[in-house]
């Protein structure tokens, strides 16, 4: 009851932090998709790239998030603004599921379909855009979904370096030993994650090839 009271009373700030949170997650996801899909395509088409690309993405994933935020802090330009830094860190974390699923999706396309396409004289570009990507789309999207859900959670930590978002409430609550405040950050973050999961899951099902 107290929590609802608090959320209502501070709805402006809740809204502002939620939007900040969405901004961090949204931009970093877009960047991860823009970088990750080409890298996934590269690893699927040229096996030499497979190990270095997926290996690097894997290693990034193992760095503790708080440490990564801290490492990036002294970097010039980036360190100037906390949100830039948070976006970069979130992008790096989101890369692995996007790359891995793009790779898996493209490798999973029926070889007979690819061979028929090549044999009929599709250019590599036509093969990629008309056959491989459309058929891999639902798998790629499920990677994006994982990336978004993980990012929504991770973005709360961005508040530790002053990048804003719903983590503000959580860290303030921790400092003040105020459970209500912690929940005021945690619950909207959880709702965001669930909504993103549900929405992207629905899209993924719609796009799954028969």
């Amino acid at each position, binding site marked *: 009851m107290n929590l609802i009271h608090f959320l209502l009373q501070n709805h402006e700030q809740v809204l502002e932090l939620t939007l900040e949170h969405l901004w961090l997650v949204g931009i970093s996801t877009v960047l991860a998709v823009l970088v990750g899909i080409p890298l996934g395509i590269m690893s699927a088409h040229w096996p030499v790239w497979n190990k270095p690309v997926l290996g690097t993405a894997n290693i990034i994933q193992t760095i503790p998030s708080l440490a990564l935020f801290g490492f990036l802090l002294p970097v010039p330009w980036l360190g100037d603004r906390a949100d830039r830094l948070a976006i970069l860190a979130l992008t790096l974390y989101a890369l692995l599921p996007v790359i891995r699923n793009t790779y898996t999706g493209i490798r999973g396309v029926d070889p*007979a*379909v690819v061979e028929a396409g090549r*044999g009929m004289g*599709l250019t590599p570009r*036509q093969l990629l855009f008309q056959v491989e990507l459309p*058929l891999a789309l639902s798998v790629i999207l499920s990677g994006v979904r994982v990336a978004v859900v993980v990012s929504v959670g991770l973005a709360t930590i961005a508040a530790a370096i002053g990048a804003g978002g719903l983590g503000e409430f959580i860290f303030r609550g921790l400092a003040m030993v105020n459970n209500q405040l912690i929940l005021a950050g945690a619950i909207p973050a959880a709702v965001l994650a669930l909504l993103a999961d549900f929405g992207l899951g629905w899209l993924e099902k719609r796009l799954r090839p028969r």
Partner: protein
Amino acid sequence: MRQTSDYGPVIEFRDVAYVLPNGQPLLAGLNLQVQRGETLILLGRSGSGKTTSLKLINRLLIPTSGEVRVNGAPNAEGDVIRLRRSIGYVIQDVGLFPHYTVERNIGLVPRIEGWTVERIQQRVEELLQMVGLEANLASRYPHQLSGGQRQRVGVARALAADPAILLMDEPFGALDALTRDQLQREFLSLQQRLGKTVVFVTHDLREALRLGSRIALLEAGRLVTVLSPEDFLRSKDPLAAAYLHAFRDGLDPAANRGAS
């Protein structure tokens, strides 16, 4: 670009060898000519090099040595995409695009060749009829078709841009016996009308004898002999005789029970 010459073989293998990157030879010393309008069968068991030979024609594979000539010019010259679009290609697994309707699958090459929508539509109708499919199947997806229907669509797709050459890799191999029989019969009547130059891969002697103008027998990456179906039946070649023997035993129930 490749010029079409009316004389000489349409396809010619000149001393072609193909070796895998790991050093394993799949094909050696292949010399073979395919004449205009004939159906040349590549007969052999798995690993004999028949599919490899086929893929060397449309440059899905590149020979390690020697050259393959198409319409009198080495197929290594000129644009590989143009080459492939001028050759129809049908494979056992069909390889229809699962996210395209039948209509779009058949119209694929015409579309990327920039035909007008009306012309493509007209061509698709014509082809559906030609391969014995009802016009109302045009809007279906491949997963809604039977195996026989899918393979008919595969043939229609290969014929779409009216290529003079057709490569077929065990196109009827995955079908049940009755459907296969029907499609073979239709292939013969279609071929009589269209007169394409066909290279047809199979391991089935019955199919080879039925459809082929000539049969090229391959074994372990080498061409053993090239014979007409009539000569094949009379051949003294040990491998050809072995094929015939196995084929006739298959027809004799007593042989199968060891009673002969």
